[in-house]
């Protein structure tokens, strides 16, 4: 796939944010803050980092992207549509009866999802299984990306997998932690303190990279750096702004788990369209 200039990637990320708002207001339910915060990471992955073919989702040589925190799937659907996996018009079917775009992602309904997720904490261990299989098949050039939420890593299953990835030195796994500091019940450090995250992952045998997850260039650079670490699995702790791009949603944990109403959506879209104009003018 032809690499796009940064300004184009930023525009795409902004378009994806607009689509997320439109999908959520049409659906009438779903998660807002996480998907908005992850738009830059998903743009970087699908438009620069991943070795994939949107017209052939089962291409045997593809990299594998697992969305472990399945509730953030609107950002994945929107990015996949923009990347050419399916028509953008299909995004409006999110959460509707008969749609391929289930409220939480189901592999068997939509090609290209790699797995089914929603219940938290299971993506990393599935990636471990895939990585072990790739090692047995001498195919470690294929890369595994696992996007996880920060609240998600309260789950014990995550640490079981983290230990195993350290034991087997599964260096073709790059985990990306959506460190947006919120979960359903409030700020992560109040609900269940996670820090010192770097020390925890390092103690489990991982190489840790910390970035601004809303900086597309930083995401691309970090993924390249992760490929150069051959002795250990890598986790990119991506410091993200929840609700990124929509002023009244940013940093507000109450937007974790619900969708905007039509008035709120209108306001959000106005803001994002202004932002889109700004991106273009800044680069002109």
């Amino acid at each position, binding site marked *: 796939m032809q690499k796009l200039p940064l300004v184009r990637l930023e525009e795409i990320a902004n378009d994806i944010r607009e689509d997320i708002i439109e999908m959520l207001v049409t659906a009438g339910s779903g998660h807002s803050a996480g998907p908005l915060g992850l738009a830059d990471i998903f743009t970087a992955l699908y438009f620069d980092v991943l070795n994939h073919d949107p017209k052939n989702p089962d291409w045997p040589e593809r990299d594998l992207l697992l969305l472990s925190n399945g509730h953030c799937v609107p950002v994945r659907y929107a990015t996949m549509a923009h990347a050419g996996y399916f028509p953008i018009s299909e995004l409006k079917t999110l959460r509707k009866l008969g749609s391929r775009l289930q409220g939480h992602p189901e*592999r068997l309904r939509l090609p290209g999802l*790699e*797995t089914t997720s929603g*219940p938290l904490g299971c993506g990393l*261990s599935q990636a471990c299984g895939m990585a072990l299989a*790739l090692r047995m098949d001498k195919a470690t050039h294929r890369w595994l990306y696992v996007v996880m939420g920060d609240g998600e890593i309260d789950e014990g299953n995550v640490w079981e997998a983290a230990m*195993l990835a350290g034991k087997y030195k599964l260096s073709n796994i790059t985990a990306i932690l959506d460190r947006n500091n919120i979960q359903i019940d409030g700020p992560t450090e109040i609900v269940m303190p996670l820090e010192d995250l770097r020390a925890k992952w390092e103690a489990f045998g991982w190489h840790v990279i910390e970035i601004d997850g809303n900086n597309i260039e930083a995401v691309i650079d970090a993924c390249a750096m992760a490929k150069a670490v051959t002795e250990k699995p890598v986790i990119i702790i991506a410091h993200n702004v929840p609700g990124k791009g929509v002023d009244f949603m940013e940093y507000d944990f109450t937007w974790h788990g619900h969708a905007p109403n039509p008035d709120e959506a209108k306001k959000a879209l106005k803001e994002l369209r202004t932002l889109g104009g700004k991106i273009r003018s800044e680069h002109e």
Partner: protein
Amino acid sequence: MSGDLKLADYLNHPATEPNRKGFGLGLLAAGEIDSRVLAVCADLTESTQMHFFKDKFPDRFIDVGAAEQNLVTLGSGLAAMGKIPFVSSYSAFSPGRNWEQVRTTICLNDRPVKIVGSHSGVSVGPDGATHQMLEDIALMRVLPNMIVIAPADSIEAKKATLAMARSPKPNYLRLAREAIPIITTEDTPFEIGPAYILKEGSDVSLAGTGTMTYHALLAAEQLAKQGINAEVLHIPTIKPLDDGTILTSVRKTGAVVTVEEGQIIGGLGGAIAELLSEELPTPIKRIGMNDHFGESGEMTELMTHFGLDAKHIVLAAHNVLALKKP
């Protein structure tokens, strides 16, 4: 399925062996046939009898440590890449602890992971109630896409393991710890799906699964001495249930006793009661654990204590015969 099933001489001092050993040997054999077969264990390699496989194929063996959630989710990932992973622990822990992961990452995902739960039933013995898994049949048979198998003995467990390696679906294999009588032979047929009529009869159907089928056969012998001609069904595949064979038998006999080493609520007894109440209402008595836990003790004393023996099956048969329509 009925006819000459070439059974062992189970009445006269049958050989005994734990059915988990048959699994261990079956896994080794499956691994020799197909290089995609892998073994994943959670710190119980010898107990689950995976050591036969591990010794022969160390590069295809993975130990996740005492981490049963990781056990099955890792299995899902392996299966996603075309492997045939057998993932094994004690059934109290897998699927006891990791049921949601089984539901989401294996069943909803329709990944052909082979979940093997050893140490089911009260026959686990002295370890006590924590380790005597009684709810696994109920837990697993409610899951869409899942196939549930409880072999009667070691020989059948080996055949079941080989059949599982060929099955494109998620499977659960229920095993027990202690040595139990071998009632089948190498020549006894086994496939995933059919119920087998081990002894034909006309008065009452005794439907057993797993370790309890042997006891149903003993009960049929005792009933014969009392002039009652019992038909014995062995139901190794609890899901999908072989409705046709069961209904044909019950239509003939008009009375049924189900026999299992687990909770009758949701177990084989539950499954057959559901079938019959819709299709063919029939007097039924369910032998098994009735909404309580086990406790420490030796296998034989526990089986007697909890009514899991031929004597109690015979009593239950008399109960249903009394209810039978003339």
